[in-house]
């Protein structure tokens, strides 16, 4: 929690002034019983009406000052809390974005989303409450005690006993509930996870008519959450009654002591009333404090969860090189590269060596889980190698600044993801401020021009979140166009033409080849037809290179390649194809 409080830094003024004004307000409030004691001991005893009215004026004055101070305090507190939350969200978002693929695989999306939304909200209201009340309440409690001392030392000793006992009860309950609130939050995460899962899997769930079972599973988790909440609630529910009992026990002691002291002539009746008033002021503050503690406990729990995300460091260190050496002969070189995913037992790929000249097309083919995607994901440095070196333009990818490296590379991932916004906005992901002309050019190459032209508004046509309003094939072509807009030096198609029919796929490949300054292209595919004409074909089997060469060579020398090829083409078609 401490670490995230640095985000209050920019609101130092507010976070000091807020509590300060609260303290001012509280100080004036502490004067009230004294004024009242004066009314009783002076005004009533002497029957002085003028004095009573004058004191009444003083009370109203105190109230006005109190109001001004407290509204000022509320404003500063709200400003600091809201500003703090905005900063925190910003920092969190930025931080999550800086995490590498490895950490993202680890944490999971829904966790990060809860951290950014409900957790931050809880922390915000926690901070707000703390600024408003956590100083004020203890101040009143201790202030009341101090005031009691000014009246009578012996009576005040009761305050000295009562307050620590109260503190033990209040803080004891907090200590017990904090870890429990963590559990509640985890339960909530669970419920959130199921909800998300059911939204994304609605088709499959319905196809298997699993609705009732999912509802049942949800019911169970929901029930667990509820019983946890009830359990925590039961403990927190002790707070009010316990504090009430302690305060009133103190009150009883106070009256008794007061009676003794008045009898001996140490204090007056009015002063007993003042002492009683101070005691009830403490009670009121404590009730407030107890209610707020629940909020703050939750906030601290949430804050710690946020902090644990913030303290998670990206496993990847950014390079320093701004620009690459342009003169290298080879666009991409793999030198005995191996890579192991975090937490995985075996290497995903091992001992891969490959040299790719500028402008070449490389096909990567192999079975499911053979490491095809892993290989190409190493080029833009989505993951770091665990052995060997990957070079782009003659320089180790780890030396580049990530942004500079990735600028050169256009990647089309397996999963065709688009974002809510217009087609133009989506295309501009590839290049900021890309002109319409550039976009149309890319769309043409990606074979997407035709259907985009048919859309109402063309480039302005809206895309819904995730591209739901487009078919799989349309999405894929748009993601390809998006990668092309930036005119990358290296283009990676990671099995990204799977939803395209053969004709479109072929036309796409031809168009890419015919581009001006055609990029170096990596095509990962299951289809032999897609990579048939590549300059080099890398055949992977279980993470290792099984063959490397042109189609004709591989057909003769590489068993795995041959098997793949003939599983897709019968011999006769091979003839007519050539």
């Amino acid at each position: 929690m401490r670490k995230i409080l640095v985000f209050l830094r920019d609101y130092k003024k507010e976070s000091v002034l807020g509590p300060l004004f609260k303290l001012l307000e509280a100080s004036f409030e502490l004067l009230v019983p004294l004024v009242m004691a004066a009314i009783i001991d002076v005004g009533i005893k002497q029957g002085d009406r003028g004095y009573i009215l004058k004191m009444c004026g003083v009370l109203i004055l105190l109230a006005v000052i109190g109001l001004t101070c407290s509204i000022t305090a509320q404003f500063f507190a709200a400003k600091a809390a809201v500003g703090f939350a905005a900063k925190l969200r910003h920092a969190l978002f930025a931080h999550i974005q800086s995490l590498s693929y490895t950490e993202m695989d680890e944490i999971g999306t829904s966790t990060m989303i809860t951290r950014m939304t409900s957790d931050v909200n809880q922390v915000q209201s926690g901070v707000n409450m703390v600024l408003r009340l956590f100083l004020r309440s203890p101040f009143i409690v201790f202030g009341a005690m101090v005031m009691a001392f000014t009246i009578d030392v012996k009576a005040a000793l009761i305050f000295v006993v009562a307050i620590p006992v109260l503190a033990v009860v209040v803080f004891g309950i907090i200590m017990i509930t904090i870890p429990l609130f963590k559990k509640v939050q985890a339960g909530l995460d669970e419920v959130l996870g199921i909800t998300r899962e059911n939204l994304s899997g609605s088709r499959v769930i319905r196809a298997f008519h699993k609705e009732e079972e999912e509802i049942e599973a949800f019911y169970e988790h929901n029930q667990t959450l509820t019983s946890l909440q009830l359990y925590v609630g039961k403990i927190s529910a002790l707070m009010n009654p316990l504090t009430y009992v302690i305060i009133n026990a103190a009150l009883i002691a106070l009256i008794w002591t007061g009676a003794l002291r008045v009898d001996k002539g140490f204090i007056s009746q009015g002063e007993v009333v003042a002492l009683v008033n101070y005691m009830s002021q403490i009670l009121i503050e404590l009730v407030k404090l107890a209610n707020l503690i629940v909020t703050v406990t939750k906030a601290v729990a949430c804050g710690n969860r946020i902090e644990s995300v913030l303290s998670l460091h990206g496993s990847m260190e950014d390079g320093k090189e701004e620009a690459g050496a342009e003169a290298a002969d080879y666009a991409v070189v793999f030198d005995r590269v191996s890579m192991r995913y975090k937490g995985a037992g075996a290497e995903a790929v091992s001992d891969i060596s490959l040299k790719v000249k500028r402008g070449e097309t490389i096909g990567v083919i192999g079975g499911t889980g053979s490491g095809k995607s892993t290989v190409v994901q190493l080029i833009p440095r989505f993951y770091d190698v665990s052995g060997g070196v990957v070079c782009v333009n003659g320089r180790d990818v780890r030396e580049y600044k990530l942004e500079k490296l990735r600028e050169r590379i256009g990647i089309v991932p397996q999963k065709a993801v688009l974002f809510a916004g217009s087609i133009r906005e989506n295309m501009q992901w590839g290049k900021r401020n890309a002109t319409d002309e550039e976009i149309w050019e890319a769309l043409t190459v990606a074979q997407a021009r035709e259907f985009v032209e048919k859309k109402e508004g063309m480039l302005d046509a809206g895309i819904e979140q995730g591209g739901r309003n487009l078919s799989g094939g349309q999405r894929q072509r748009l993601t390809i166009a998006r990668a092309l807009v930036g005119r990358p030096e290296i283009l990676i198609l990671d099995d990204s033409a799977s939803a395209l029919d053969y004709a479109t796929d072929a036309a796409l490949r031809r168009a890419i080849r015919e581009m001006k300054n055609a990029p170096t292209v990596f095509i990962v595919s299951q289809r032999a037809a897609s990579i048939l004409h590549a300059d080099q074909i890398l055949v992977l089997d279980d993470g290792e290179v099984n063959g490397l060469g042109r189609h004709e060579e591989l057909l003769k020398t590489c068993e795995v390649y041959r098997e793949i090829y003939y599983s897709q083409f019968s011999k006769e078609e091979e003839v007519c194809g050539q």
Partner: protein
Amino acid sequence: MKQSEKKRSQRETLSKVFRYIKKYWFYLILSIILAAVSVVLTLYVPILTGDAIDYIIEEGFVEFGPILAILKKMAVVVLFTAVAQWVMNICNNKMTYHVVRDIRMEAFEKIEHLPLAYLDSNSHGDIVSRVIADVDQFAEGLLMGFTQFFTGVVTILGTLFFMLAINIKITFVVVLITPLSFVVAAFIAKKTFSMFQLQSKTRGEQTALIDEMIGNQKVVQAFCHEREAMEQFDEINERLKKCSLRAIFYSSTTNPSTRFINSLVYAGVGVTGALAAIRAVSGFSVGDLSCFLSYANQYTKPFNEISGVITELQNALACAARIFELIEEEPEVSDAQDAVSLKHVDGSVDLEHVYFSYTPKQRLIEDFNLNVKPGQRIAIVGPTGCGKTTLINLLMRFYDTDKGQIVVSAHPIRSLTRESLRSAYGMVLQETWLKHASIRENISMGKPEATEEEIIAAAKAAHAHGFIKRLSNGYDTVIGEDGGSLSQGQKQLLCITRVMLCLPPMLILDEATSSIDTRTELRIQNAFARMMKGRTSFIVAHRLSTIREADIILVMKDGHIIEQGNHEELLAGGGFYANLYNSQFAK
């Protein structure tokens, strides 16, 4: 008018909330009774204190006997109060969390029964935010309402009664000034409701963005789009900051304002009380004044609380309204009253003059006719976006046709229960979806009672057994969110295994094998071929090798069937299909 409309909708939301609470009437009544008991006892303490003070007059004039008796009484009262408070708190917790559980449950059930059209066209992040964040916020408001509203009201009434019993005139001072605090609180609450609504809406917007950007972080990073995402985020964040500040600040002025009115009441009581004590009218003593002063505190405190609760409830109601919006969303047309369960599936499927479109503006499928005989294999081909996936949506009745009907085994599908219709199909979709559960649970989704042998046999048939065995916990390996660390191809193999296990009479395969290498695919094809024997199957695939053996090939374009026939016929016809086929090896 807008005001009154808002008020009405607020009242409606409130009455809906009460419908949920009604179930827990026992706790509600118990809570109210205990609130009354604890409040009355609490109010009795100042009277006792006042009485005691009246026995402490000055030096030498203190009567210890009666004081002791009073203090003993006080101790008993205090203990009873504490117990009542505790039990009341527990009742309130029970009520709140059960209501929240019920609402969340209902929201989730609704998600399961909403038409897919709704799920397809609404941001998932927003729906999630309703089920989680809004419900949570609502719970908080409701709990605060329960714990403070009753006690508040009872305290006000109780204090009024006790005060009247002591002194009518001073009571009037209190009663005349305090309503001001209601007025102030109501005024602020009214002003802030729309601010809270705006805050809620902006939050929803932000959640949707977060869901999108964080959910697809890998793409964001691949395009170095972090900065833009950040800008977009900051823009919303800035707006949220502004509207939150307004909502929070304005609503937080309630407390100081009402407290100010408290102080006025306090001063008023002090003066009139002191004056009365001087005149010593109707035996008004210093003890009475002390009692009145503490009442003045207690009487106005619930006003503060109630007004605080009201702002909180405003917020809670705004959240509740968003949840109810989801809960009240029109569900899928439920199965017809006389819907029959599809029992003997012969495998015939007829589409008769089917019309369908997602939006009225864009017509998609028009006058579509198709007659499928039992056991036939239907391949659907065509350029991307031609309506192939739509056809599946209609067959499975994820969407209903606009006009015309689909008949399965001589039953129009609208007359069948969805469950029986859907379980007649085995479906493998382009988008692989797996549950966050063990591999075993995922595979046995369609047949929970399957034995270990059956599961392994199915996995072997789908060529998934090999890689499953290599996972750390084999069949008990728990798959992470969104399929976790499995590759796209492995996920697809699992989806196929899922269907292999239950072997329904009809099959729908949408791009089923696009992410599987062809060697594995070849083996799966064989398994599929066995599986498809005697089963009507619809295959959407781009691989012509898959399609070649189909009985009917539907060539679709722009939602229409432009050609229909088997491979040889279509090739001979020299139409669209022939072009498509010949382009397979185009350079």
